[in-house]
């Protein structure tokens, strides 16, 4: 009996150990055929509506939903100066027709622009117009069009603001089924009127702007506290609050059926049922165009059959409409996941992910951001976590190496060769070879730099000869002592600015400090520092140049879209040209968006497709402002400045200074493009070394030690780092 008892105890202990050990196994091992067959099915699938794209020259102007569920999409054709309506009642076919006569009549009644169209439940149409150059300070009117096409201007009891030039400026309007008007008025808030314009009340504070109406409730978005305040439209009392924690400020609200509402932001579309406070994610933004940074979304509406329409526009004023229809045969989550690691948020990755998912609905791109800003993780912690995963063979499929030790990852054989992708593009010489070859070795491309930045100085043409190298630049500073060459206040600022164009000279092959070059650099920096004048960093680099306080201004230019304030300074000065920043090395560029594929990735093919897409026209042309494209078509295209004419900037600087104007002209962009073609030498200054140099040269700049002593200190301090 005792033996049996002992046996039972032993067996129990063994079982316990085995269960403990097997519990440590990966969950993937538990996937069986039965599990697979029980995979959750059904999700909304994005489809672009061809008739509504800008390819025919039209631009989506308004979206409105009739109370029977018919969706009307108004498209404006600039060349013909006419507007057409595309209507759909079933979500499948679109009926195209010219706008009714009321539309033209209203636009011809004055200097009017229609800004919003909405319908009530009785077939009346409400038209909000904006009147250009309204002297009275009242910029808007509202017209009611009856089913028999009669047009009446509603006599609104406007609640004017105290600002003389902006008494009434309406940003949005929604009409309830009963014909009551909810309008969003700048500096006033959300106001409630009858269909005859009688003021009924206000919801929320004067800062509220975005809202939607569903059943008897109005939902106001409180930007400051990131929540929705819900008011009863009969009692005007607030009934509840809905927290929007986790969503971004760029969200939009729209009404749904049965009293529900929808909230849309980059992360997806969320539904809140009537009287509810819980957000149910019904469309994952990461699987749709919502996550593409170059596209702006607006005009979200629900169709008669539960489908959604979202209109998108880009910086070049192209518009498109995507339909989101529930497909019960699609798995809820794509079967394949591609993981992309990046230390910091990156627009090119988001853009590429969106493009890839549009092409491959069965692939989900999971972008893991090491430093997402919401946590206290340091850069070192994030890198250690990544390295730990790579060592365990569980690393991401792709790694964006910006901010990481690229050479180290190459040397350790972490990254796969991408030469097939590069060779495919280079067959037709489609890529900027100087940038593409940054990390090439023996015909292999473990890392591809897909964008680049350029350190640029803007100055008057007459000083171009002084901008050849650090010597001529220093001479210039010594000669022109009436004002500094550009704004800088601390030696550290100077060292960082010039590190891009000088750093490659400071380190010898054997990973030692080149004392001679660094000495020369520090001596030149001392001369520049001594001629810094009385300006400080807060005087604004471009502003100082624009208002003639300096001889030029400096910027690490990160793409055509970054060329804004310097262009305004050029406008102000009516001159000036961009040139390569002078330094110890010429024609410098800073590689950016450097991508590599993990050798251990099990999705090498799709990862290569991702990299290929990063280099494609579609991604490289996208105006996402994170670098100059290496794709030559995109480089040429960017220099055309399409859409620039529609942009206008007004920027306030230090004191009363003010710069205003448009984006760079084609001629100015051409000059920058020419510089792009001339880039030759990559430079990625080592942050640790730069910090050591700044820290140990402080006394030299203060005149307390000689340059030789400073160099000795730097060498001593950096020896440890370099010898590691």
């Amino acid at each position: 009996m005792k033996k049996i008892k002992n046996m039972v105890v032993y067996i129990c202990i063994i079982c316990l150990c085995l269960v403990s050990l097997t519990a440590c196994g990966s969950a993937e091992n538990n996937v069986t055929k039965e599990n697979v067959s029980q995979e959750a099915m059904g999700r909304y699938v994005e489809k672009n509506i061809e008739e509504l794209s800008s390819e025919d020259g039209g631009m989506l102007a308004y979206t409105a939903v009739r109370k029977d569920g018919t969706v009307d999409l108004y498209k404006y054709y600039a060349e013909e100066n006419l507007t057409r309506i595309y209507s759909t009642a079933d979500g499948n076919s679109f009926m195209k027709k010219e706008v009714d006569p009321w539309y033209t009549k209203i636009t011809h009644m004055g200097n009017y622009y229609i800004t919003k169209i909405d319908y009530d439940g009785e077939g009346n149409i409400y038209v909000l117009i904006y009147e250009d150059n309204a002297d009275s300070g009242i910029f808007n009117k509202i017209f009611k069009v009856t089913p028999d096409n009669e047009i009446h201007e509603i006599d609104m009891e406007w609640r004017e603001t105290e600002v003389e030039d902006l008494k009434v400026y309406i940003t949005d309007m929604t009409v309830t089924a009963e014909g009551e008007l909810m309008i969003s008025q700048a500096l006033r808030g959300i106001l409630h009127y009858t269909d005859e314009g009688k003021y009924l009340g206000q919801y929320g504070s004067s800062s509220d702007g975005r809202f939607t109406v569903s059943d008897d409730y109005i939902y106001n978005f409180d930007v400051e506290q990131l929540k929705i305040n819900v008011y009863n439209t009969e009692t005007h009392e607030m009934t509840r609050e809905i927290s929007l924690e986790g969503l971004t400020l760029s969200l939009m609200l729209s009404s749904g059926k049965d009293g529900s509402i929808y909230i849309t932001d980059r992360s997806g579309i969320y539904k809140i049922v009537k009287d509810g406070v819980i957000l149910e994610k019904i469309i994952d933004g990461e699987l749709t165009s919502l996550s593409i940074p170059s596209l702006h979304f607006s005009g979200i509406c629900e169709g008669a059959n539960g489908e959604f329409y979202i209109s998108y526009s880009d910086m070049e004023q192209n518009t498109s409409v995507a339909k989101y229809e529930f497909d019960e045969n699609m798995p809820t989550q794509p079967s394949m996941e591609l993981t992309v690691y990046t230390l910091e948020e990156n627009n090119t990755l988001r853009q590429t992910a969106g493009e890839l998912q549009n092409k491959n609905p069965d692939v989900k791109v999971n972008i893991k951001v090491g430093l997402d800003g919401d946590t206290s993780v340091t850069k070192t912690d994030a890198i250690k976590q990544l390295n730990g995963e790579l060592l365990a063979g569980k690393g991401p499929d792709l790694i964006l190496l910006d901010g990481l030790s690229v050479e180290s990852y190459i040397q350790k054989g972490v990254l796969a060769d991408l030469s097939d992708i590069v060779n495919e593009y280079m067959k037709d010489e489609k890529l900027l070879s100087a940038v593409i070859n940054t990390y090439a070795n023996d015909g292999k491309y473990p890392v591809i730099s897909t964008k680049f930045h350029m350190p640029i100085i803007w100055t008057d043409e007459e000083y171009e000869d002084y901008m050849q190298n650090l010597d001529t630049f220093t001479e210039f500073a010594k000669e022109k002592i009436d004002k500094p060459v550009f704004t800088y206040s601390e030696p550290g600022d100077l060292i960082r600015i010039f590190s891009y164009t000088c750093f490659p000279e400071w380190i010898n092959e054997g990973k030692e400090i080149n004392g001679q070059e660094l000495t020369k650099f520090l001596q030149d920096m001392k001369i520049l520092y001594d001629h810094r004048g009385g300006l400080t960093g807060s005087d604004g680099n471009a502003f100082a140049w624009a208002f003639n306080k300096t001889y030029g201004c400096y910027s690490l230019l990160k793409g055509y879209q970054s060329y804004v304030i310097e262009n305004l300074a050029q406008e102000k000065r009516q001159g000036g040209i961009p040139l390569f920043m002078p330094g110890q090395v010429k024609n410098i560029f800073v590689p950016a968006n450097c991508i590599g594929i993990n050798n251990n990735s099990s999705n090498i093919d799709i990862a290569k497709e991702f990299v290929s897409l990063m280099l494609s026209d579609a991604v490289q042309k996208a105006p996402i402002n994170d670098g100059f494209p290496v794709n030559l078509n995109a480089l040429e295209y960017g220099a055309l400045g399409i859409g620039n004419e529609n942009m206008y900037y007004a920027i306030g600087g230090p004191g009363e200074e003010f710069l205003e104007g448009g984006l760079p002209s084609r001629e100015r962009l051409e000059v920058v493009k020419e510089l792009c073609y001339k880039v030759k030498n990559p430079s990625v200054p080592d942050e640790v070394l730069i910090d050591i140099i700044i820290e140990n040269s402080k006394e030299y700049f203060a005149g307390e030690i000689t340059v030789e002593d400073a160099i000795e200190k730097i060498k001593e301090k950096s020896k440890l780092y370099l010898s590691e």
Partner: protein
Amino acid sequence: MKMLLKKSRKNQNYICRNNKKSLTGWLFILPSLAGVSIFYLIPFADVVKRSVTEGMGSEFVGLRNYTTVLENEAFLLAAKNTVKFMLICIPLLLVFSLLCGVMIKSIRGRADIYKTAFLVPLAVPVASIVLIWKFLFHENGFFSMLAVNISGNSIDFMNTDLAVYVLIVSYLWKNTGYDMILWIAGLSNIPAGLYEAASIDGAGRIKQFFYITLPNLKGMLFIIFILSVINSFKVFREAYLIGGNYPHTSMYMLQHLFNNWFVALDIEKLCAGAVIMSIVTSVLIIFFKNSIEGGR
């Protein structure tokens, strides 16, 4: 013959019982052994494997990584600093905590208050300690200002050779209480009769200490030594928080180097360095153990 058979059966029963006991023992330590194997032994085996392979791959390179590490200036400096730190700190800590232990043991009443006072540093979080350090030893800190008042010159303790001594003081301050408690436990195990007999024989307090107390604490000495060595590695946290990845060279420890190698993905060097460190530490411990046992 019958007697012989009986004896042999008795022996067999004895062996069987011993085997059963042994099996039961193994089964009891199995969960713990499994944990140690999974979290320490198997990873260490992987470290040893990686120390003789190339980078992230599996190509065997023999002792090349060891040669690289032993020729690496940073490794040599870090090893020198670590050894120096241990050679200064551990004897000081052992002696100082023992003296404190003996003194507190001899105090009648209120001893608990002193024990608690010595243990307080253990409860202070590292981040708070670093703040105190900065307040005391920064270029514009308390001691530097004191130096200005006395000599007219400020001292940037953390960026001079004095940095390591700040680290040593911190280590002693933090660990004295813990070691003292261990010593007191050891002292409590010494029979009071021994002291009584010695005092009848005319031995004074000093003689009692050297001829009774110290010989009876040898077992405890080994445990305290091991724990002190382990705790000496933990001082990296303070050094890292105050000096970052690259502190003053006198404070640059092996943990700094290993941390930086891991960030740079120099896994082969990291593994080779770790194996060397393990060997040296093991040799040190074995040597110390043998010395103590030899002395017995």
